[in-house]
């Protein structure tokens, strides 16, 4: 796709939806800063979405996240105008969706916006293939061609061979794959996924999340994903939009939201997150205090470095700064006593290492049996940092304190 990178795919400006007869009065109250409860009391109107602003870039997965009743499903329906917004604008590719006529809107829905629903919304009287073809059928694509496209889409989601079954023959996870295929068959730029995986069992849900992530690597669609599950949001979202009472509370990456919550609500929201799943080796490692080079140093200088820094072990690099082994203080002092001058005679070349994006949860069992610091090694073989038990615990404790503050 050849888009100007600075132009967001979807831009939402002051989007507001108020349900009820006196929505105009309610809108005025809202703009003067009244809360959702006050508006309900004074006008009897419910605020679905209140002045939401955010953008979604092309090829990005943005997860809109909030508890039930926070307006996230209303918000996504305002984007394709299944629900008419009360005020504000929605731009897709710089085109104001809220200003379109019904016919123009149908074209945009057909060509740009695929939607996946929480309870799958498959048509029970149509086969898997006919369901997948639905959007193409509406576009009056010729039957042979739409069958071909539908079969390709079904293959993409791993449902080859199920074309002529009916939805009730399929398990929940498979039904939602059909839902996804139906959206993909149209090859839309944007996928709106409304709690798409929420009705699935935890294990299937996790599989579907993985599959979406891997599909996205090849598709590069713009995905707006609605979820009430923070773990899901953290897993699949490039960015997260957090909503409360119809308003956007915070927008940012998973790390930003976890480590720098905008207010008390976000803090409370994220406090139950298993921090060890979000933190990576990179974020808990520390810089090694000293290293030795195979070509430049001998046992004596290695021992001196260790004594100076209070280390019991030191990593050895080759001339290209790759880690090739380690030496302990005991080994070094023995070697010095024996008069050994070459490090490679005493160096241990067998050691455990982890990559920078290893989740902290995986580090704990590795660390448990390791007498020495755990090296974090980048893909080029260079030492990025080390994890000592103290630094891991400190990092976890600190994030924990942030959350409870």
């Amino acid at each position, binding site marked *: 796709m050849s888009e100007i990178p600075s132009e967001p795919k979807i831009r939402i400006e002051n989007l507001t939806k108020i349900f009820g007869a006196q929505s105009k009065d309610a809108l005025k109250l809202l703009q003067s800063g009244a809360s959702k409860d006050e508006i309900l009391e004074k006008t009897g109107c419910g605020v679905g979405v209140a002045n939401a602003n955010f953008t979604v870039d092309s090829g990005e997965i943005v997860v809109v996240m909030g508890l039930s009743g926070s307006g996230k499903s209303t918000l996504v329906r305002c984007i394709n105008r*299944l629900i008419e917004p009360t005020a504000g604008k929605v731009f897709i590719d710089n085109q104001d969706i809220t200003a379109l006529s019904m016919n123009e809107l149908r074209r945009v*829905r057909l060509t740009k916006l695929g939607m996946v*629903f929480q309870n799958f*919304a498959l*048509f*029970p009287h149509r086969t898997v293939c006919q369901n997948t073809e639905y*959007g193409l059928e*509406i576009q009056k694509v010729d039957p042979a061609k739409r069958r071909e496209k539908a079969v390709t889409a079904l293959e993409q989601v791993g449902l080859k061979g199920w074309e002529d079954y009916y939805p009730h023959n399929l398990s929940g996870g498979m039904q939602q794959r059909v839902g996804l295929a139906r959206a993909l068959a149209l090859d839309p730029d944007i996928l*709106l996924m409304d709690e798409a995986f929420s009705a699935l069992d935890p294990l299937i849900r996790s599989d579907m999340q993985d599959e979406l992530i891997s599909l996205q690597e090849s598709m590069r669609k713009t995905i707006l994903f609605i979820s009430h599950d923070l773990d899901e949001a953290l897993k699949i979202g490039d960015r997260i939009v957090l909503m409360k009472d119809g308003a956007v509370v915070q927008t940012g990456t998973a790390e930003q939201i976890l480590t720098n919550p905008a207010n008390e609500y976000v803090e409370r929201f994220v406090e139950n997150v298993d921090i060890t799943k979000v933190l990576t080796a990179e974020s808990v490692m520390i810089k090694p205090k000293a290293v030795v080079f195979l070509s430049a140093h001998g046992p004596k200088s290695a021992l001196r470095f260790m004594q100076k820094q209070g280390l019991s072990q030191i990593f050895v690099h080759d001339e290209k700064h790759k880690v090739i082994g380690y030496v302990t203080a005991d080994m070094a002092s023995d070697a010095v006593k024996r008069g050994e001058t070459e490090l490679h005679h005493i160096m241990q070349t067998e050691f455990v290492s982890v990559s920078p994006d290893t989740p902290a949860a995986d580090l704990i069992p590795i660390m448990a049996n390791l007498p020495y610091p755990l090296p974090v090694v980048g893909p080029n073989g260079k030492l990025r940092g080390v994890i000592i038990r103290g630094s891991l615990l400190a990092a976890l404790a600190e994030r924990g304190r942030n959350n409870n503050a």
Partner: protein
Amino acid sequence: MPRIPIGATIEAFIDFLVSNFSFLTIAFTRVMEKVISFLEAGLLFLPPWLFIVIAAGLAFWLTKKRGIALFTLFGLLLIWNMGLWVATVSTITLVLIATLTALCIGVPIGIIAALNTGINKVVQPILDVMQTMPAFVYLIPAIPFFGLGKVAAIFATVIFSMPPAIRLTCLGIQQVPRELVECADAFGSNKWQKLFKLQLPLATPTIMAGVNQTVMLALSMVVIAAMIGARGLGGEVWRAIQRLQMGSGFEAGLGIVVVAIILDRVLQQVGTKKR
């Protein structure tokens, strides 16, 4: 306190319609009478045994149930045996025409009422009146417009049997899950595509229940309509009442029951035959 002239007003209104438009309805009656007698003659042209075999075969083909086919076969043979064949064919013809007319009017009204809340609010109370008004009342205005006879009977029957077709069509469409309707919208369907690709197929079992109800009501009304000259099985019952002939009244009643059971079972199977 002065009496509110509801009855007088209605009468004046009907009189006005009769004196200004009855030439149209009477002309229509003449045409319809020809159509009805042509249809009846057509059905009677077949020898009864052939008709009965075809009906049983049709019942089997529609329901795939041997029991229903056998019941059709022996039921109709019994009617033939009781000497009620001509009356039965006449009744079936009336039910057929009345039901088709009621469905042709009722189903579209049901669809419109389901999709438009404003119209629904108007239609519902009218249906309430139609269903609670004693069936005999429809017979009175039918006579000045259509004269005594089968057309007047069909008119009264259509009005009496239409409400379930409207109500159940409306209900069936309203019962299509909201998420599915949203989904059809989200994929850019227009009103007609939504109606024919989603709402009507999903509403079909409910609509068929309405069709079943309409047929049953038409059958019961055709008997009442014998009072204004509908003849048929109802006419046999009516004559038996007037002459206090318990035996022939019971036989004619049995004939109606047999026809009702056949129609009901066949239509139920057609309605519920879904994947």
